[in-house]
């Protein structure tokens, strides 16, 4: 079974981002970039399926500027077999990414596509659902457990009220939640080996898609800052403040 994994390059989760003073966007200069953490989980899950003999080939794909090839190299070092970069200078938005992924699915014919549930930069949480819609495939979103059986998968989904289990026939789209697995680190030998793995670069024109964004960002601002309050030294003082100053109890 072939698996396609979507990988987005984002500002590392540990970085506190800064808004440019002219309000035009986020300041990217000199900032550490990484694979979206949910996509690391997606790669890990695919690799585990391969180790179990369920997956035969893992294709990692990324849509964006040239720099996202670095993230694809990491994906290869983590165990993907092949990488495809769809190069564009547009800011990638979920609907366009979903269209690009659909075109790649039609080219590659995977049985399973695994994406992150959310990119931690745009926090959209849309792409997997959109891809499933465009393909007319079932979707297992926010998945914390995945079981593949023959021509069917069972997913446990993290939802507001607890957990939901669904069964769906393949092909299908799955999006990962944090507790699906703990991703491994790339080892040095694997990073070296990754350099030899097949790497394809495609333009929008090759796929016959239009990646022009539908949404326009007018401005980006810092959120209002919360004032740090005071430290109290005793529980009595805390209760007094909550009762008489904040009046919340």
């Amino acid at each position, binding site marked *: 079974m072939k698996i396609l994994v979507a990988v987005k390059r984002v500002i590392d989760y540990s970085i506190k981002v800064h808004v440019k003073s002219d309000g035009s966007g986020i300041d990217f200069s000199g900032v550490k970039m990484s694979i979206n953490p949910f996509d690391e989980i997606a790669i890990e899950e695919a690799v585990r399926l391969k180790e179990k003999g369920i997956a035969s080939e893992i294709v990692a794909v990324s849509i964006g500027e040239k720099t996202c090839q670095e993230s694809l190299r990491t994906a290869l070092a983590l165990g993907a077999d092949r990488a495809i970069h769809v190069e564009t200078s547009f800011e990638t938005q979920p609907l366009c990414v979903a269209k690009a992924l659909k075109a790649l699915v039609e080219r590659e014919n995977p049985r399973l596509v695994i994406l992150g549930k959310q990119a931690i930069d745009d926090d959209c949480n849309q792409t997997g659902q959109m891809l499933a819609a465009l393909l007319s495939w079932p979707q297992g979103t926010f998945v914390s457990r995945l079981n593949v059986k023959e021509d069917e998968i069972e997913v446990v989904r993290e939802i*507001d009220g607890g957990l939901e289990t669904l069964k769906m026939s393949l092909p299908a789209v799955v999006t990962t939640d944090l507790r699906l697995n703990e991703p491994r680190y790339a080892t040095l030998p694997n990073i070296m080996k990754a350099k030899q793995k097949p790497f394809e670069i495609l333009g929008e024109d090759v796929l016959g898609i239009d990646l022009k964004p539908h949404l326009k960002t007018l*401005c980006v601002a810092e959120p209002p800052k919360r004032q740090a309050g005071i430290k109290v030294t005793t529980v009595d003082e805390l209760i007094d403040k909550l009762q008489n100053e904040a009046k919340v109890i």
Partner: protein
Amino acid sequence: MSLLLIAEHDHETIAPATFAVLTAAEKFSVPIHVIIMGSSCQKVTEEISFYENVEKVWIVENQALSHFIPENMVNTLLELAKGYKFILAPSTTFGKNLLPRLAALLDVAQISDVIEIQDQNKFVRPIYAGNALATVTSEDAIKVLTVRPTAFEKAKKGSLKAPIELYPFVPPSIRGLTFVKKEESSAERPELTNASIVVSGGRGLQSKDNFALIEDLADLLGAAIGASRAAVDAGFVPNDYQVGQTGKVVAPTLYIAVGISGAIQHLAGMKESKVIVAINKDPDAPIFQVADYGIVGDLFTILPELTAKMKTVMKN
């Protein structure tokens, strides 16, 4: 040009998030139609039909809709949606799961997690875990939005009843999808996103058993329980207790963070709370930067003392 609001419910009651979306919907100044989909929805349809500014309620009933599976809902919505200019749902796991599927079939972008509606085509949404706020517009004819429920007051019930109309169920195009089961976390306490007080525990609690300290205080205050990702990952509490960028967003009147360091991903889910209390033994923990009242010390002595003394306060 009207607005379609997709209501979230459990067949018994309308999810409170829906009423926040209703308030957001009013900002568009167009007629608001609500759609209720499910397997047996008379009761919830009645409930929403009495809310102010609801002009019409569509009801769609079918056995296939009993578990709110997007694949089973989307063909009906797609047909109905074409007559609307705005489509809204809450950015709960229900809305997040469903709405992008609809937007893609309409070939329009979705605007996720809107916290402010400036006009009919100008929306503010948090990005980067709320560390920046983007103002966006859409070039699409239909605007599809999920709305962050904590950013809007809940709409009020009115006295007039909106007309209810039946809409036919359009069968799904996808087969081979079955619901197996749902494991619900305890419903004894107030729901996290809706509670006026939240007591949250983090890795500092050290074990599932110690979380009883959090439960004691929460039960005394009639509060909901929340947690950091670290606490959930360690198995102290179920997944749906997670507060943060990738968990739930809460904005209670009082948020008490115990043994939580205050990573940006956690702050994203609670920094809009009215009053924040932090209990942490590390005076430099980032949580203190957003806390109105901080207390530095060992939670294992402070928490029991707080609970005991609150008990006396609550009695008076």
